[in-house]
């Protein structure tokens, strides 16, 4: 087709009338979630361009001519490049796409321009998902999606009403959902990115850090962010066994604890009992280390073991990940490697004589290493040490100040002091950081572990046991282990004394009010939904796909076969739809059919029955216009009315009527 200016103008007018406001509206709502991330100047520019477009639709404002558009485009691209230093990647890419869309709005001419713009809005929706995959955003973007699709409908069906377009878009989306689900589950997944991810893909994620210092774990104690979830197919281990080891810290200067010895290790220990298996779903923290229940029974694919038998992934956890894990909670180690002995005995240069003296005293009166441990824990209990959620600040020599002056601390204070004391007493010891506890969600048989469950404890080498866990916090405040950080917070707020109150009294104090119970129930249900969402949608990957297929009885399916299976299922669903949405044709009954045929005969000689015209009126008009046919028209019409309103069941008469209509010759003149 030749596109003369006149045709272009008409096409544009048609498309603008059908979808001018719709396209603008869809673009604006699709862009809204991006606005907080865009530079302020860009938001202002976009708002100005959209306003211009609005005035073009409403007030027939002129579009800028080609030169101005070129200048705008070049200027925006330049500014974006200056802002981001690149035009690719997530941040710059979405800013660029939004700008191009807004500029495109100033030169919509062909129907194709409109369609392209709608498709760009879909892209904008997808870019929103690269930033957040929260459920509320999904709900919002589904609404945007329907609006966008309705815009497409209005462009394809001229004169489609708003309700019609929205309903059709909704129906199309709902009907597409089962197919989408099939594609989601069966479309072959690739592992890893196609090209390098830009650096801006992950930022601002929290989690346990590589270092421990006074206050470092405490910083997390207010964060309700979820660290990970663990699904147990069998029984969930009791609170006292929920130690999630994440990092083993060997090296210290007296203030900070770091990993130091971070060599690769082998899984060598003597396990007792059968392993506990579970599925670990960590939240992305952009860190490679993984919280694992006690000692891993095996090293899952894609992870490796570091000294201290902690796991880490090959690349930092940035996306959704699900790992099949198994653990032992009862075990024994036989030999202490020389490197671990040396690292486990390394004393900080910053160690006071008081601290060394305290340890030496226990060592002298003890018959075994276990006695020293007991003496130290007894010291914490008897010497009025307090577990507190608001530990006082410590200055130059935190261990000394904590042990002899403040005596109030959070778990990292106790762990650091205990390990320092053990090393001074000549017992190899190390700090372990990770998480302790977790909230059981009964609606899903899984544990939710939050950042506030972060914990630090100690491990000491006992000759007959190997590395054994000693949690000084548990000695001072067993409630921390039993009720978790949240429980402790509540107990302390209500003035309970930790470490010695009878458990009934504590339980009464812990009892939640009715409102809080409802709130907790809602929170748990919401989390269960969120978890299912994460497990089956967000973290659905190659491994989970393989697992699902294995459950369905397909082992090791080749991707091409998977595509074949997918096509088959799609065909099946479509076949089902075809059956369900079959056109139910309601042909008129034989009498009416014959009458319509009579009307058609008359229509062919120019006598057309108007849609609302009754049979009698039509007959009278026909007789007037075609007097030579008047007799025939009247006879057939009366016969028809008799059959239709009187003689319903008379089949012979129906046949006779059809015969008469067939014999009726419509001739002019």
């Amino acid at each position, binding site marked *: 087709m030749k596109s003369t200016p006149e045709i272009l103008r008409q096409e544009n007018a048609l498309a603008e009338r059908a979808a001018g406001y719709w396209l603008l509206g869809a673009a604006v709502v699709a862009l809204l979630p991006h606005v907080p991330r865009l530079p302020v100047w860009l938001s202002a520019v976009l708002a100005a361009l959209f306003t211009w477009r609005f005035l073009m639709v409403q007030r027939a404002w002129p579009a800028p001519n080609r030169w101005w558009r070129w200048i705008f485009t070049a200027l925006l691209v330049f500014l974006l490049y200056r802002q981001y230093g690149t035009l690719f990647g*997530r941040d710059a890419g979405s800013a660029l796409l939004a700008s191009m869309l807004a500029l495109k709005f100033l030169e919509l001419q062909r129907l*194709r321009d409109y*369609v*392209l713009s709608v*498709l*760009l809005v*879909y*892209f904008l*929706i*997808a870019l929103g*998902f*690269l930033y957040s*995959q929260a459920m509320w955003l*999904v709900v919002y973007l589904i609404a945007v*999606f329907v609006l966008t699709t309705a815009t*497409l409908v209005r462009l*394809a*069906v*001229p*004169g*489609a009403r708003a309700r019609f377009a929205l309903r059709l878009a909704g129906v*199309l*989306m709902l*009907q*597409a*959902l*089962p*197919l*989408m689900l099939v*594609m*989601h589950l069966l*479309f072959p997944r*690739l592992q890893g*990115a*196609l090209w390098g*991810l830009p650096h801006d893909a992950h930022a601002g994620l929290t989690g346990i850090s590589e270092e421990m210092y006074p206050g470092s774990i405490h910083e997390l104690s207010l964060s309700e962010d979820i660290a990970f979830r663990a699904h147990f197919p069998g029984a969930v281990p009791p609170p006292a066994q929920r130690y999630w080891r994440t990092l083993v810290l060997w090296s210290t200067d007296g203030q900070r604890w770091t990993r130091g010895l971070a060599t690769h290790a082998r899984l060598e220990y003597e396990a007792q009992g059968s392993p506990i298996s579970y599925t670990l779903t960590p939240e992305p923290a952009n860190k490679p280390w993984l919280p694992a229940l006690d000692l891993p029974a095996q090293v899952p694919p894609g992870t490796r073991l570091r000294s201290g038998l902690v796991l880490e992934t090959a690349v930092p956890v940035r*996306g*959704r990940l699900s790992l099949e894990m198994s653990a032992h909670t009862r075990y024994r180690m036989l030999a202490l490697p020389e490197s671990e002995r040396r690292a486990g005995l390394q004393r900080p240069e910053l160690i006071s004589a008081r601290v060394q003296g305290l340890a030496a005293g226990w060592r002298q009166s003890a018959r075994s290493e276990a006695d020293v441990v007991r003496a130290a824990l007894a010291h914490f209990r008897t010497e009025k040490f307090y577990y507190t959620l608001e530990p006082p600040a410590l200055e130059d020599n935190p261990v000394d100040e904590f042990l002899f002056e403040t005596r109030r601390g959070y778990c990292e204070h106790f762990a650091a002091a205990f390990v320092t004391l053990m090393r001074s007493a000549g017992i190899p010891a190390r700090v372990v950081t990770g998480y302790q506890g977790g909230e059981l969600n009964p609606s899903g048989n899984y544990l939710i572990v939050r950042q506030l469950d972060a914990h630090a404890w100690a491990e000491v080498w006992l000759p007959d046991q190997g590395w054994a866990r000693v949690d000084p916090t548990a000695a001072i405040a067993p409630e921390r282990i039993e009720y978790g950080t949240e429980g402790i917070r509540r107990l302390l707020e209500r003035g309970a004394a930790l470490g010695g109150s009878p458990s009934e009294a504590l339980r009464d104090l812990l009892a939640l009010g009715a409102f809080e119970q409802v709130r907790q129930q809602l929170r748990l249900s919401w989390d269960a939904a969120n978890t299912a969402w994460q497990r089956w*949608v967000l973290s659905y*990957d190659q491994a989970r796909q393989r697992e699902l297929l294995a459950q369905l009885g397909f082992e090791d399916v080749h991707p091409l076969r998977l595509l074949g299976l997918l096509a088959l299922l*799609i065909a099946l669903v*479509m076949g089902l*739809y075809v059956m369900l*949405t079959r*056109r*139910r*044709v*309601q*042909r*008129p009954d034989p009498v009416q059919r014959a009458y319509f*045929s009579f009307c*058609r*005969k008359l*229509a*062919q000689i*120019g006598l*057309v029955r108007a*849609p609302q015209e009754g049979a009698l009126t039509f007959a009278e008009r026909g007789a007037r216009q075609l007097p030579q046919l008047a007799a025939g028209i009247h006879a057939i019409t009366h016969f028809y009315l008799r059959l239709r309103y009187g003689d319903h069941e008379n089949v012979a008469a129906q046949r006779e009527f059809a015969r008469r209509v067939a014999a009726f010759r419509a001739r*002019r*003149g």
Partner: protein
Amino acid sequence: MADGAEAVLGTRQIYILPTRHGLLFVLVLVALALAAVNYNNALAYLLTFLLASMAVVSLLHAQRNLLKLRVSAAGGDPVFAGEPAALRVCLHNDSGARYALRLETKQTALAPFDVPAHDTRCVVLSIPTLTRGWLACPPLTLASVYPLGITRAWSRRLSMPARCLVYPKPADETSWQTTAGGTGGESQPGVLQDGEDFTGLRAYQAGDAPARISWKTLARGQGLHTKEFRAPLAESVWLDWEAFAPHTAETRLSLLCRATLEAEDSGLTYGLRLPGVVIEPDNGALHRHRCLEALALHEVHA
């Protein structure tokens, strides 16, 4: 025409292919899929799948939009060659509503229209005519880009039996004038005034045919008068093929067509003689149609 003049669109008569916009859509899908794979983003994957699924589902809607429609066509009133013929095409819908249907022939496409549920909508297809005779309804295609504009569903070419009669093009004024031998000629060739009875003159009244003006009295300066004839049935004008002997066959038909129109307009009783066809003198709309029909359908033997 009876029920045979109706076509029903079954599954085998309907085809679907992506439009250009559809290809654009596929392009965007591929780009989305690449982004999803690269960022390993589950929701970007889902959106890609949702769009792809919607495209698949829209195929069904596209097909359903045409399925089981009944199409009928009827020829309109006869026209003269050169005038556009009007064919009336009706779409009968025995089911739920249909949207954005577009009726196309090889040459033209009509603006899209809807057919409400259990209703009939008719459109008039205007077709240019060049030659006399029956004008067959050109093969019709029913198409639609419903629902999303990314696919086009269309029916196989429907050959409808409807046809429209095209009379010969009446000879134009100049050739008619030269052939008929100028104004006032009482004996135009081809118009044999067989037994015509001149009864006298009366004063001219507005609306009298120019052929009946008495030019002789006017030339004598006696004013404008109209000739009056009494034409009994036996004495009528014959429009005769042989009278136009020097012309080619088509020109003769064209001239006879003109003669028929003039004779009818002049209120004459006229008959038509063609090789093999004789239509006895008469007048009136139906007679005129019979004569013109004979001219339109006359087979010329070389």
